[in-house]
């Protein structure tokens, strides 16, 4: 057997918690070669991050404990080395970047110092480290690198922060780079840029890249081989194309099946009198224009998706329609009445018609209320909907409708999983029997397989109850399966709107095209083609994809 660059053999890790011992990782084996990209694919709780933490000696022991296995790197077993020996390897031979770069950068030190520290801590002289830091910042495409050295993490955008993390990780030219969900919180176009940067840098240095992700699209875009993990165990290994085309394990099949964006697109609804018609909506916060003349119509029972990247104003739109925020101008006619200027009494009645499902159910459900209290609160506020004696039966009915059990009514939200919590939030919205539900990124915090179930639920409600939806999302494939009508927003303006077929099959605006091209398809074959299309777009002079000056400096 040839020696691999990094080889994990039979790794098992467990954590001691008050609730008992949790076997986070069980008998996991995989290997990584020089110049290769290996993806570890799994949903939350699959143990994918724990394996990476074990390689970096980042598991807190106790409560964690490595019960078996070896991690062979460069001819030695990492687990047999002392903490000091492993410290010398960390950052120098094996480096790591993380999800959520804002919290992973120290908020109180300048980024230049933090990157230089990655070198000085391994013995590089201070002046050399500073010079190299400047070169790295230029290489990863940070604008005005000289000035950026003295800036702090909060002064950069999300994508730039991930570039800073990459610069820091690559400072010592490591042999292995571990990337833990490196693009998860980023906009699609920024995600595509960061992944391309990683690929370029890998080509330059020949390092092995271990990428940890929950996203089949990321695997399709960047990985040579993939390891699928579920509940702490490796269920399948193979090349990315092979695993996608012929998944052997039922879990992999389920995961691939749940990936959105492959269903039949909805046909446009016949035009009728719109239930909501918005005209020239405007809103600015200080000098920042959040909404700049938004107009659209929504038919009864129609699902309109609002798509855009962060800062596009899509969440502001939701807040204004639900009167959580005041508009500066324009009107929004709900069944002929302007809901933006409605007096409180009328607004109170309107609340029954318009409901909202928020992004993170952990935060949108009061942690100190039981499910029964959460759902029945609607009737406390609007007592004429339902007489109190019938509440119990109705809560049971609503819970059944969203796929929960009636006996769950006495529980608290923290006793449920993320997907179950979002079902509770939906049941709460349904309690008012609304005509329109605004979903603000309602499925983006959920695992792929759970996401599919919640979307199915919403789709069923739409069909059975004729509820209209405004579905705010950044995830295009989900929109493709669920929406009738799509509105693309950028910087507070509507770039393009049309039926779902129009947008996905024949987008007219370059921004929409760029957005579609930047999205990642779970099928490696499709993704390869799409990457060609994206590269072609980049070459266009519009420069939509690259908001920063493209870096041109090569490693000396």
């Amino acid at each position, binding site marked *: 057997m040839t020696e691999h660059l990094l080889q994990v053999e039979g790794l098992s890790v467990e954590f001691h918690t008050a609730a008992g011992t949790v076997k986070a990782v069980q008998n996991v084996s995989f290997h990584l070669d020089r110049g290769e990209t290996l993806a570890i694919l799994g949903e939350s709780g699959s143990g994918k991050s724990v394996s990476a933490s074990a390689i*970096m*000696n980042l598991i807190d022991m106790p409560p964690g404990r490595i019960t078996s296995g070896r991690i062979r790197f460069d001819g030695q077993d990492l687990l047999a080395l002392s903490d000091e020996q492993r*410290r010398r390897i960390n950052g120098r031979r094996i480096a790591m970047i993380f999800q959520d770069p804002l919290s992973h*950068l120290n*908020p*109180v030190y300048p980024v230049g110092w933090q990157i230089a520290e990655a070198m000085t801590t391994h013995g590089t002289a201070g002046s050399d480290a500073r010079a190299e830091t400047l070169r790295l910042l230029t290489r990863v495409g940070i604008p005005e690198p000289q000035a950026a050295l003295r800036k702090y993490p909060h002064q950069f955008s999300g994508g730039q922060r991930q570039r800073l993390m990459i610069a820091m990780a690559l400072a010592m030219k490591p042999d292995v780079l571990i990337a833990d969900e490196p693009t998860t919180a980023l906009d699609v176009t920024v995600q595509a840029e960061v992944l391309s940067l990683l690929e370029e840098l890998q080509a330059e240095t020949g390092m092995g890249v271990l990428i940890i992700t929950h996203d089949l699209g990321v695997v399709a875009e960047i990985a040579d081989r993939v390891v699928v993990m579920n509940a702490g165990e490796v269920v399948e290994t193979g090349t990315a194309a092979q695993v996608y085309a012929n998944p052997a394990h039922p879990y992999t099949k389920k995961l691939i099946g749940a990936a959105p964006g492959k269903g039949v697109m909805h046909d446009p609804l016949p035009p009728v009198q719109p239930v909501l018609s918005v005209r020239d909506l405007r809103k600015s916060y200080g000098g920042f224009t959040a909404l700049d003349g938004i107009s659209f119509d929504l038919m009864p029972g129609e699902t309109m998706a609002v798509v855009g990247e962060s800062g596009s104003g899509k969440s502001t739109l939701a807040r204004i329609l639900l009167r959580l925020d005041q508009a500066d101008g324009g009107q929004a006619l709900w069944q002929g009445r302007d809901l933006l200027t409605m007096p409180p009494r009328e607004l109170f009645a309107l609340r029954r018609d318009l409901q909202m499902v928020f992004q993170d159910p952990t935060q949108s459900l009061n942690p100190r209320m039981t499910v029964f209290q959460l759902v029945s609160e609607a009737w406390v506020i609007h007592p004429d909907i339902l007489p109190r004696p019938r509440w119990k039966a109705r809560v049971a009915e609503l819970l059944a409708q969203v796929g929960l059990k009636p006996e769950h009514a006495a529980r608290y939200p923290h006793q449920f999983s993320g997907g179950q919590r979002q079902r509770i939030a939906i049941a709460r919205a349904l309690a008012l029997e609304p005509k329109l539900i605004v979903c603000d990124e309602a499925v983006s915090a959920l695992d792929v397989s759970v996401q599919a179930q919640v979307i199915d639920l919403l789709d069923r409600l739409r069909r059975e109850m004729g509820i209209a939806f405004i579905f705010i999302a950044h995830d295009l494939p989900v929109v493709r399966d669920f929406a009738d009508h799509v509105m693309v927003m950028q910087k507070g303006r509507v770039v393009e709107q049309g039926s779902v077929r129009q947008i996905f099959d024949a987008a007219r605006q370059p921004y929409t095209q760029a957005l579609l091209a930047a999205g990642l398809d779970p099928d490696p074959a499709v993704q390869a083609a799409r990457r060609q299309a994206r590269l072609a777009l980049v070459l266009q002079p519009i420069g939509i994809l690259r908001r920063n000056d493209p870096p041109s400096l090569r490693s000396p």
Partner: protein
Amino acid sequence: MLTFLRKRAVGSLISLIGLVVLVFFLSRLTGDPTALFLPVDATVEMREQFRALHGLNDPLLVQFGHYVRDLLHLDFGDSLRKARPAIEVVTEAFAWTLQLALITMSIVTILAIIIGALAAWRGGLFDRVASILSLIGASAPDFWVAIVGIVIFSVSLGWLPTSGTGTVWHWILPVAVLFIRPFGLIVQVVRGAMMTALSSAYVKTARAKGVRARPIIFVHALRNAMLPVITVIGDQAAALLNGAVVIETIFGFPGVGKLMIDSILQRDFNVVMAAIMVTALAIFLMNVLIDIAYALLDPRIRH
């Protein structure tokens, strides 16, 4: 950063002005001021004379105007007992209190940060002992510790003097007693803040970079953990600047706390007023310093 400081300073200044108003009306609205300012055995003539002299027969607003005018000149009148300007008496006493507070808080701050940080990092027995000791420290009544200290070290062993300020030996007991409570409180806050900082994502990044343990604790984590700690240090320092009344009384320490109590008991109200204003001003300045420290530590506040 300047706008931040200006905002905070203006806020504190408003509080200071509010305090001035409060003190004035507290002295006037609690009945006959002469009852407060003059000894119990004062004659009717003395009272009338006092009224005329201090313009106490003028309308309240005029009185308030005079009061503010004098205040701006730091003129609080003479101490009725010591026949010297009240402000002189107070600044003299305040100098002692300031020294006591500075010495105590410096020792407390340094020791509490080191021990709190180590307790958070090492865990185990060290952590448990430090936690229990700091809890006991934060729970102990200081005057009781003071008299127990006097019994042991002054009366029984005869090592330390019981009162005065003459030599270094005189300072040991008061400083040691004043040390206990703030130390207990700050160790707990440092420990909690360091636990949070050490389990944060940026410390994980530092470990992934291969940074050594010592810089991780004292460079990466500590500076972040200092933000909540500074608030508590400020509160405790303010308490000491207000005069550790009981401790100063027990040890016969000529600080501003003892002065205030004595002046109240002797009805020397001019001194009381001066003492309140001087300490309030000192606390105001210290709050500005705390705010500067905040801004220096955290760039997010600066920008």
